[in-house]
């Protein structure tokens, strides 16, 4: 499954600084996003949202005629799409974390383009499923809907735990996920002592997706830290 379908999503971008808007638009365009709509004020954003029905909104916290949080509430009344906050204040992190306002993620300015793109694609991946169900790896492809792997034309079923494991790794494809996060997803809060079980699951997944499981190319171990999944899109 490529992430090409995500690049067709309509994105609403709201920031009061026109130069910053230009820059974010150029980053998004460079990374293949085609439908980007911008606004500089709350009222303008509401109008643009009503006209273009965005599938993702990126909002600045401080706007000249209001704040991003109240804008989020207004936007959410019309449609339940993911929202990412851009904030220039460190303390907003606490606000966004602590108040549980329902934002999907936030980025503190300044940020690197690749960080922004990663966050956007991660949110989009979480929120929108692909029509094309396959995730292409180097030696196999994963069909998450059917919970199976297709390797050399052969269909291999994934167990529930293997499915969870691959899903987390795929959502964060190309990034290391710590052993702790994986164990927690698989066994809940009291996951201590499951590290060996995790290794057993990883090795079974490798049997299914890798050509040579002892020399993995898709599911990589980062020693002492965690694992990462490399898809063909990476």
């Amino acid at each position, binding site marked *: 499954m490529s992430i090409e379908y995500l690049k067709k999503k309509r994105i609403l971008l709201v920031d009061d*600084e026109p*130069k*910053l808007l230009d*820059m*974010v638009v*150029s*980053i998004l365009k*460079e990374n293949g996003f085609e439908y980007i709509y911008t606004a500089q004020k709350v009222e303008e954003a509401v109008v643009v949202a009503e006209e273009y029905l965005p599938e993702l909104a990126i909002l600045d916290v401080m706007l000249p005629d209001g704040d991003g949080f109240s804008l989020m509430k207004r936007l959410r009344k019309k449609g339940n799409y993911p929202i990412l906050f851009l904030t*220039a*204040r*460190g*303390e907003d*992190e*606490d606000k966004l974390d602590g108040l549980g306002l329902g934002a999907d993620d936030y980025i*503190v*300015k*300044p*940020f*690197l*383009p*690749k*960080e*922004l793109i990663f966050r956007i694609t991660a949110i989009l991946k979480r929120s929108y499923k692909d029509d094309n169900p396959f995730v292409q790896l180097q030696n196999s492809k994963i069909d998450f809907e059917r919970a199976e792997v297709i390797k050399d034309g052969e269909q291999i079923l994934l167990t529930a735990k293997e499915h969870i494991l691959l899903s987390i790794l795929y959502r964060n494809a190309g*990034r*290391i*996920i*710590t*052993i*702790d*996060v994986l164990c927690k997803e698989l066994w809940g809060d009291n996951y*201590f002592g499951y590290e060996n079980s995790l290794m057993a699951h990883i090795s079974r997944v490798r049997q299914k997706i890798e050509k040579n499981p002892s020399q993995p190319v898709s599911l990589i171990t*980062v*020693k*002492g*830290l*965690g694992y990462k999944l490399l898809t063909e899109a990476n």
Partner: protein
Amino acid sequence: MKSVPKLIGRFIGILFMSLLLLIILNVLVLSFISVKQLSNSSPYQTAEEIAVSLQKKDSGFKLDSNNQKWLQTNNIWAILIDEDTKTVTWQTDDLPETIPKSYSLSAISSLTSGYIDGYPTYTGASEGGIVVLGYPKKSYWKHIWPSWDYQFIADLPQTVFIVLIANLLLIVLIYYWVTSKLTKSIAPIVQGIQGLVTKNNVYVKEKGPLSELAMNINQTSQTLQSQERVLKKRETARANWIAGVSHDIRTPLSMVMGYAGQLESNPSLSLDEQHKVNIILRQSEKMKNLIKDLNLASKLEYNMQPINMEKINVAVLTRQVVVDFLNIKLDKDFPIKFEMRNNVHSSFVLADEGLMKRAITNLIQNAISHNEKGCHIFISVFTKQESCIVVVEDDGIGISDKQIEELNNAPHYMISDQSTMEQRHGLGLLLVKQITLSHNGEMKIGHSCYGGFSVTLEFPINNVN
């Protein structure tokens, strides 16, 4: 307030001691005087002696010349009252005119115990009757009816004792009343002073004997309060100013980093241009970290940063920080090796997750910033006795012993009056120190066994639920 009863107790002690001393002194003086009075040979005795020395001669009664002289010099007159006739049969030459020459029995009884015409008289038995000595007027005071109830004399020791105790009690009561009144007026003053210590707003009623003191305390409290307000206002202003500046820098810096990031992945750039873009990126990254550190440091300094303590697994947290670094930075020049030892995975520390992440991030960032040519970074988390220890070290250029000494003993960066250059150099590290201290931890800077720089953070383990 504890000191006031202690003070009163001490005063009562001193009071008792003084009373005791006073009694002893009195007894001593009294006995001294009594002894002196006794040795002063009582007039009764003199009368007896004179009576004995009065000889009956053919020509009448005669006193020897010595006694006669003594009586004269002491201005004492003497008479002899005859046994049978009750008339004066002998007398000294200086007998006043007013002294009667004959006596009834009742008159003799009266003069024995008292006076004749104001002269204190004393009697002694002689051959022919009784000798009466008349001392000068007002030379003695006589106890005319010296008789007491027998029981009264028998009970005298107890009576004296009871009276003494009653007196003592009275004195103590009076003292207690006076001191308690004083204490009552001191108590609010003491409370006021204690309030001043805790910087509370203090008001003491300006009444009673210590009203002036109360007034002074009230004035001091007001001065302190207004100083506190001014100080707080200034601190808030400074922290807000730093927050404001860092906020305003973030948006322009976003654009620098954004466009530089885009350029970095532009394949049409020459190698030299790519290198320049890389420098822009790295330096903006440094600025970003500096803003973050400055803002947090000022907030920690002025207690404007909420610290949410919860049980944190430092091993898990450190591993996440390392992974976040690897995921975002992707710096090939700085490979990170992570290690956990000694069952650290099941040890918890009471900490603020955000601040803790920040501390470890800063240490890794520090290793990267100070080794332009790249280095290996080694991070280990382990337990040692009751502590959880995080060590971040590298095999980079390291620092000299002198610099280590300076960093370990560096004053707070906001207090330091050294040149600003040096302060800035260590802001990231000093922030780590500040965070560590706010978690009851310890930070040590030293040489790494890998050849570079090493920072050790030590936190007390808290495995209690």
